[in-house]
């Protein structure tokens, strides 16, 4: 009888632990219970879709800057985790527009897992596009075009480039994100790709005779996956043959772990070493990483690695002086990295509704 009691006690304890663990996983919206073992969103599928978009639109992504621009800058942010207030993402774009940054890069986890939060992300992009267009986009008037043609151009781009002239509505804010793990849970990819189309792409910025290369990699699942690795190895990205001055890479999952008390997975061993070698091969100037919501800045194997803080309200309710970074690429090709602050506070539901936002209940 004693034996049976002891055994029952062990079984009950074991079962209770399992139940508690499954309860924890299923009660937390940020953790996908089935995702602990195997996910249902494939990085290969996302990359195939991204490659298709890139095949048709890759050339349009390049920036050919006019000669009067000798140096330029871009902003990098990460892990905005937008819920019902898109404020911090809007603030990022406003900051960029005010400071004449050429474009804005985001390292993933744009919105926090729920479909309705993507609507709020869309609002931020829409408002950013509106303000950006009014600052940079001009009606194209020459011997062939009149404003009535509906053709417009970005005054910073040289006229010979393929994407020089577009109709007004085709100009959108130059916001370049990659998918993060929160962007793909709960069918998030269908919402992400509807807005941004791609999570694996690259473009160049041509200043004078120099090209700077910007590579965006999809690591939302904690891996680049079969197809993306093959695509990289097969040189599916188009700028391998250009004389490149600087290369910048952007992806979500981090390599370096700034803190001990985070339970975020990084890449498996071979992939980690593959990536570090690949960055060296690309002669990368700066590799940007997100995911862990913590800052790390180090040189490794000739590459500067910057792991970004998050820019969301939960981690930084009062904002901070260093939630974004601005990279200024100077005329001689050297880069200067400087911190950029975000200070907006999360608005209440009532305040947002009074501004015309639709706020869902939590």
């Amino acid at each position: 009888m004693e034996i049976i009691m002891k055994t029952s006690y062990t079984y009950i304890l074991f079962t209770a632990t399992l139940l508690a663990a499954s309860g924890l996983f299923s009660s937390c919206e940020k953790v996908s219970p089935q995702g602990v073992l195997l996910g249902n969103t494939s990085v290969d599928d996302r990359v195939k879709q991204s490659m298709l978009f890139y095949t048709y639109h890759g050339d349009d992504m390049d920036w050919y800057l006019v000669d009067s621009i000798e140096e330029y800058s871009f902003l990098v942010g990460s892990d905005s985790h937008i819920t019902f207030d898109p404020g911090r993402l809007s603030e990022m774009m406003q900051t960029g527009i005010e400071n004449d940054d050429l474009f804005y890069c985001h390292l993933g986890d744009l919105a926090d897992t729920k479909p309705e939060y993507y609507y709020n992300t869309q609002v931020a992009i829409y408002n950013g596009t509106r303000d950006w267009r009014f600052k940079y986009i001009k009606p194209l008037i020459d011997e062939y075009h009149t404003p009535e043609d509906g053709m417009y151009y970005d005054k910073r781009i040289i006229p010979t480039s393929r994407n020089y002239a577009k109709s007004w509505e085709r100009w959108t804010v130059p916001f370049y994100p990659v998918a993060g793990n929160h962007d793909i849970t709960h069918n998030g990819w269908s919402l992400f790709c509807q807005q941004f189309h791609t999570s694996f792409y690259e473009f160049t910025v041509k200043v004078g005779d120099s090209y700077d290369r910007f590579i965006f990699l999809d690591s939302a699942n904690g891996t680049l996956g079969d197809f993306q690795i093959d695509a990289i190895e097969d040189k599916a990205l188009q700028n391998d043959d250009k004389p490149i001055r600087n290369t910048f890479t952007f992806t979500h999952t981090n390599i370096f772990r700034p803190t001990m008390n985070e339970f975020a997975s990084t890449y498996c061993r071979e992939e980690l070493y593959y990536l570090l070698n690949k960055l060296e091969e690309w002669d990368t100037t700066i590799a940007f990483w997100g995911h862990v919501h913590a800052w790390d800045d180090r040189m490794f194997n000739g590459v500067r690695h910057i792991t970004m803080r998050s820019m969301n309200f939960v981690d930084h309710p009062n904002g901070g002086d260093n939630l974004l970074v601005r990279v200024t690429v100077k005329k001689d090709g050297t880069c200067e990295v400087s911190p950029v602050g975000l200070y907006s506070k999360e608005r209440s539901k009532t305040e947002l509704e009074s501004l015309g936002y639709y706020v869902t209940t939590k």
Partner: protein
Amino acid sequence: MKSLQRILLSLLLMSATCTALAQYYSGEHTYDGENQNEASASVTTGKNIITGPCIGNTVHYKHYFNDHWSVDGGLNAQYTKQLYGFKAKGEYHFKVKSFHMFASAELLYNRYFKYKTNEIDGNISIRFERGYWDITLGETLINYTIGESGYTELPTLTFGAHASLRPRTNNWNVGLLFRNYDDFYYENWNINWGLDFYYRFNPRWKMFGEFNIRPAGSMSQLASKYETTGKVGVIYRWK
């Protein structure tokens, strides 16, 4: 009602049988009182998304000084991955009530030739073992070097759980595993899982095997395909 009683009675009897068997558990990983040496060799094959199809061998040698102390050395050669490694491990076995406890310290070196990377891992762990299951908890320090750059990761929690269908004393067994390490690597929060089995021909010879799924990512990252391997091998024990 009768069928319900029958089911309950059967479950009760099964539970009592399992318990009785568990009480006679002598410890699969302990000194059997006779054979102080143990050697194993295995072949691993599978597919990894970075290195493609993979095949390799591992060999182990373990020496039991007595019922408490043992040392273990191993070599790993993964030919297609161009990964070669060796490790040394010391273990202390003791009992707390009905638990077999194993405190161990391990040093592992891996050379990833393809990626010009040297990796050194240090691990300390404690394993709680009963007749049907075991749990491992520990800390691992991972250092890697590429070229002239080196990085030591902050300590990583090491964890593992294993449950068997039959008690360890049985001549055959099938089990489930769940862990963030394997014989020759330690990961962060990438959780391996799979099936293993063994068949004991006699007290000296045993065959074992493992089917291991090693995903990338975990928790909120929606784990994705990374590596799938199968391993089969033999263990021989002698005086």
